[in-house]
């Protein structure tokens, strides 16, 4: 009980003091997972729109694969990314293993199916006649796409939140491809694991509180963006 209470008190104190170690790890996590989410947004939204509204052979299979990917286990992703990025692996010459870039790659692979799958679902939810009507009214294909994207924006922002939530909270892939290197690839989740095993519970608690707070802030920001659209 003492441990719990003292841990939380110390943890909160560390945050309020702006402890440099905790802050550094927080920024790294935010940058790494933020970039990974943005990349999967840029790739996943177009891909999801395509899967959502076009018809081609094998589309169901593709959707099935993407939907399976939404539950991709981070440790499995970590293992395969490691195998590719190790010096002996096919992409070893890039010298990316044990770097923040390697974590970004792994997290993109984790977030991309989430963003793609939820975008596809969002687009499919729209009335299929909407697009035909738009085109009929003389909209160009690009204009029609933009309109559909606008219509589905709530779900698409939700997709981004889900993607960010998945990558900021994963530990397996970051540990394996990043290596948990101090000042370099030690992110909130891997640092929490290490500090817990070292018995530094106050720091571990501070880190998890920061992790929760960060996820909350980012989700809040996206929710505001989402809802501002709603009031218009």
């Amino acid at each position: 009980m003492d441990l719990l209470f003292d841990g939380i008190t110390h943890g909160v104190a560390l945050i309020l003091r702006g402890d440099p170690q905790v802050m550094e790890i927080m920024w790294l996590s935010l940058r790494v997972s933020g970039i990974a989410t943005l990349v999967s947004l840029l790739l996943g939204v177009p891909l999801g729109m395509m899967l959502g509204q076009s018809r081609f052979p094998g589309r169901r299979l593709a959707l099935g694969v993407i939907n399976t990917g939404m539950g991709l286990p981070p440790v499995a992703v970590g293992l395969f990314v490691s195998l590719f990025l190790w010096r002996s692996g096919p992409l070893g010459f890039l010298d990316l293993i044990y770097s923040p870039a390697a974590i970004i790659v792994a997290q993109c692979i984790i977030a991309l199916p989430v963003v793609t799958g939820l975008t596809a679902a969002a687009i499919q939810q729209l009335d299929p006649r909407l697009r035909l009507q738009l085109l009929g009214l003389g909209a160009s294909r690009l204009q029609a796409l933009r309109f559909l994207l606008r219509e589905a924006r709530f779900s698409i922002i939700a997709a981004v939140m889900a993607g960010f939530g998945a990558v900021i909270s994963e530990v397996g892939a970051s540990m394996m491809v990043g290596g948990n290197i101090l000042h370099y690839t030690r992110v909130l989740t891997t640092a929490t694991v290490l500090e817990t095993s070292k018995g530094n519970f106050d720091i571990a608690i501070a880190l998890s509180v920061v992790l929760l707070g960060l996820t909350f802030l980012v989700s809040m920001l996206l929710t505001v963006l989402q809802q501002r659209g709603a009031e218009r």
Partner: protein
Amino acid sequence: MRRVLLALLLSLCGAPLAAQARRDVILATTTSTQDTGLLDSLVPRFEAGCGCRVKTIAVGTGQALALGARGEADVVLVHAPSLEQRYVAEGRFRNRRLVMTNDFILVGPPADPAGLGQATSLKEAFQRLAAGSAPFASRADSSGTNILELNQWKAAGLNPTGGWYLQVGQGMAATLRIASEKGAYTLTDRGTYLAVRQGLALAVLYQGAPELLNIYHVMEVNPETFPNVNQDGGRAFADFMVSPRTQEFIRTFGAARFGQPLFTPQAGKREEDLLQPAR
């Protein structure tokens, strides 16, 4: 909204995230050097001196050696002498140099249900453990500690199986915590035990046998076998570990915080010299 996202994207990408090619030194090592805080103190000193970055991958010694033996690291700091010699003989590592020692100890619940305190030899201690009157937490991760533990069961003619033998598959500090929570015995290096013992219900119950000496060596990954290792960086880090200044740092490391130093510097000595005299 698009503008907000674009601004975010640009600000995030501005940060230097890519690896500094070629200049990084990858150090594969055991969890004990990290869990005790030794590397967190030493690595920045080395980095300041060489102007490079060290990527420390702290895993069990078995995995650290396996990484190095495939050329995935540049230098290793490990503690499994028998395994190290085999890899050196295979030409995967070179320049195996003694860095420091501490010792392994058997720790367990202070009430000592297995009576380890009465054991007169290491063999007897392991036989008492195998009676199964309390659980034993094994690292079970091919770490140096785990290899030594398995060798001791073998030496005592035992095959540890059963519900009392917990294979936890985690680092030393995590294993100690599990042992404490489960009222289990475990084998640990003294350094990690001293570093994390606060808040653990574990007492030192058997120590001092010559077989329990824990010997750390530094080895460079052989560039003749793996042409793309960072040969100079690996060499520089190995030299740093056995340099007089580092050895002096190791001599007192942890004394202020844990009441006694965690490691004994041994650079320049030979393994045979360490094993002969009684400690």
